[in-house]
């Protein structure tokens, strides 16, 4: 049996007096597609941000691809990692943000080529060739020379996906990638994500409020509430026959709000 | 040349005299600036177009030229047309007009930052124009201006040494005169620097406090 690619071990995350994650443990297998759902404030974004090293953890251990993420071995003991270690570990992980976070002063193509050229020392020609493939995959090849300000939200998000893929990470994190979009633009982004899920064996963690999409996309769904995994299982089970009271209430509310499941 | 504490002790009273004048000039200059700034701001915002434009040009001109030259102008040229001001008064007016142009900008921004909806709500509740200004617009416009105005107050304080050029015996001039008669620049100049540093460190804390207290725009 293969080793999990992510092993979260009893982590704690506090913001001042507020404990957001209180002893969370979970594992993700290589190639698994995971959907994280749950009410607002339950800590879903926080988990992704911790994996992307945008936050620090207050306690616990995280292992990614066989190595500690936040710690290094030093003389037989584990000590907090330095920036160099984090830099190395980030090679394995990519993230797509809710608000795209494209670089507004660079054209679409440069947004995609920048990181490979800087972090991997790729030559411009090679980086551009690869970028054009990715832009083609997300249907944005014809906009390669446009500036982000000239794109719609859905187009921006597709560029952001291409940008994250350009570094060929083993793990991709998606945080509500459609929730900042006008309703008519959601589908074009979800289509790209579906293609991605089907065509690659990347490990993917997805936070979403689109239950229908979570259903189609995920191998496994985790339902969070107040920083804990309340229920997990195959999408069919979670969505059709939730066992926990809280999961049921949550899904009922979501349906009432008009999201299809 | 060595630092001489005895000399420091000796010149301290003279420097304190100068510091008093410096503070007086700052306070009076600020008062003039506050009033003149208001005049500039009102002229620019409400006067008929030619006057408003002339005011804008005057403000730009004053802001684009050095205070030192303006002081020379007030002190040495105005007497030719019969306006002979005592040195300190000339200095206060110079500071006031120069910084009045900055204050005008702060006033304008403060007033323009009051949302249009406030003017409309005042109209919809049938307040008159003066009532609108007094009860609705100014109470909202003034608090956010205070830190910016205080900032200019401090800047003005630091420019008071220019008054020495028109014979005002403020801190810098006293220091220079000490230096002139004793041929020592190190102690008086260093002390003047220290005085300024102390005053502005105090004002930095004061400013932070003002900002905390008044500049919370997000509550609107």
């Amino acid at each position, binding site marked *: 049996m293969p080793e999990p690619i992510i092993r979260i071990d009893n982590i704690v995350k506090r913001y001042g007096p507020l404990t957001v994650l209180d002893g969370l443990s979970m594992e993700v297998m290589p190639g698994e597609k995971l959907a994280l759902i749950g009410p607002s404030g339950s800590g879903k974004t926080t988990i992704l941000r911790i994996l*992307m*090293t*945008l936050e620090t953890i207050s306690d616990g251990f995280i292992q990614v691809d066989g190595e500690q993420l936040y710690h290094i071995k030093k003389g037989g003991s584990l000590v907090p990692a330095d920036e160099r270690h984090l*830099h190395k570990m*980030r*090679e394995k992980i*990519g*993230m797509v*943000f809710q*608000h795209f*976070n*494209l*670089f*507004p*002063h660079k*054209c679409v193509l440069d947004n995609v080529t*920048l*990181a490979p050229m*800087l*972090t991997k020392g790729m030559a411009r020609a090679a980086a551009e060739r690869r970028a054009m493939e990715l832009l083609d995959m997300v249907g944005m090849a014809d906009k390669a020379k446009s*500036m*982000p*300000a*000239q794109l719609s939200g859905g187009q921006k998000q597709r560029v952001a996906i291409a*940008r*994250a893929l350009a*570094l060929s990470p083993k793990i991709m994190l998606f945080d509500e990638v459609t929730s900042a979009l006008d309703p008519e633009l959601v589908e074009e982004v979800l289509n790209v994500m579906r293609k991605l899920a089907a065509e690659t064996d990347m490990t993917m963690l997805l936070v979403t409020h689109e239950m229908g999409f979570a259903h189609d996309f995920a191998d496994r769904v985790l339902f969070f509430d107040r920083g804990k995994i309340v229920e997990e299982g195959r999408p069919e089970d979670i969505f059709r026959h939730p066992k926990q009271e809280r999961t049921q209430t949550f899904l009922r509310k979501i349906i009432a709000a008009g999201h299809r499941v | *040349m060595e630092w001489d504490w005895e000399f420091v002790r000796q010149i301290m009273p003279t420097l304190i005299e100068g510091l008093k004048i410096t503070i007086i000039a700052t306070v009076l200059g600020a008062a003039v600036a506050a009033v003149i700034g208001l005049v500039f701001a009102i002229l620019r915002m409400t006067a008929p177009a030619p006057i408003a434009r002339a005011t804008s040009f005057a403000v*730009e*001109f004053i*802001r*684009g*030229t*050095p*205070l*030192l*030259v*303006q002081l*020379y*102008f007030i002190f*040495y*040229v105005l007497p*030719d047309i019969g306006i002979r001001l005592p040195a300190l008064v000339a200095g206060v007016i110079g500071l006031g007009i120069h910084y009045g142009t900055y204050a005008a900008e702060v006033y304008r921004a403060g007033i323009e930052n009051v949302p249009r909806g406030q003017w409309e709500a005042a109209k919809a509740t049938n307040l008159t124009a003066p009532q609108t200004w007094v009860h609705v617009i100014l109470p909202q416009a003034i608090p956010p201006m205070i830190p910016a105005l205080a900032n200019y107050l401090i800047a003005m304080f*630091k*420019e*008071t*040494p*220019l008054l020495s*050029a028109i014979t005002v015996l403020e801190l*810098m001039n006293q220091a220079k005169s000490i230096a002139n008669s004793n041929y020592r*620049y*190190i102690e008086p*100049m*260093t002390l*003047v*620097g220290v005085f*300024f*540093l102390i005053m*502005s460190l105090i004002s*930095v804390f004061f400013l932070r406090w003002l900002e905390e207290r008044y500049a919370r725009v997000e509550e609107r």
Partner: protein
Amino acid sequence: MIDWSGYIGLILQGAWVTVQLTLMGSALAVVVAFAAGLGRLSRFMAVRALATTYIEFFRGTSIFVQLFWVYFVLPFAGITLTPLQAGVLALGLNVGAYGAEVVRGAVKAIGREQREACIALNLTRSQAMRHIILPQALPLMLPTFGNNAIELLKGTAVVSLISLTDMTFQAQVVRAQTGSTLIPFATILVLYFVMAWLISLGMRWLERRASRGLEGVRA
């Protein structure tokens, strides 16, 4: 009859000194503004403390005092500068301290989201600063830099007090020679204003250039 053409020539010589002071002072100010502004955002406590001390010191004491210090006191530490060098140094360091705060403010204004995108793309801190943060922060700095340059221009008048033959100084000389007060002072007021106006024109041009491609991002 007064030889006005000769005196105008004198004032123009002074104007050239003023221009030199403004240009060199601004150049120095920009360099130290970036060094100190970025220094204040450094990870290293010592660098931050150094930058903060510099900024607070030069913003806290008057340009006037700084100038006299550079001119009369520094030589005792073995550093003797020409009046021009002293003027450039004092003006540059003084305005640079204000500029440092502008740099810091603009860099901080480039939001958390851009920083996080850089981390997610695994750029190093210096790569992020160089390729992402500064290019976006620059257009934000330029308007205030323009104002600072005008403040520096106005500050050059003060150097006349350490016998540097700038425009204000030459106006004083002309006044001493001719006994006329109005004409030299009115002349230099206009010249200063023209210079200030040229600076703001130039800055606006720079701003347009620097924000090219960013249209629509910041309305």
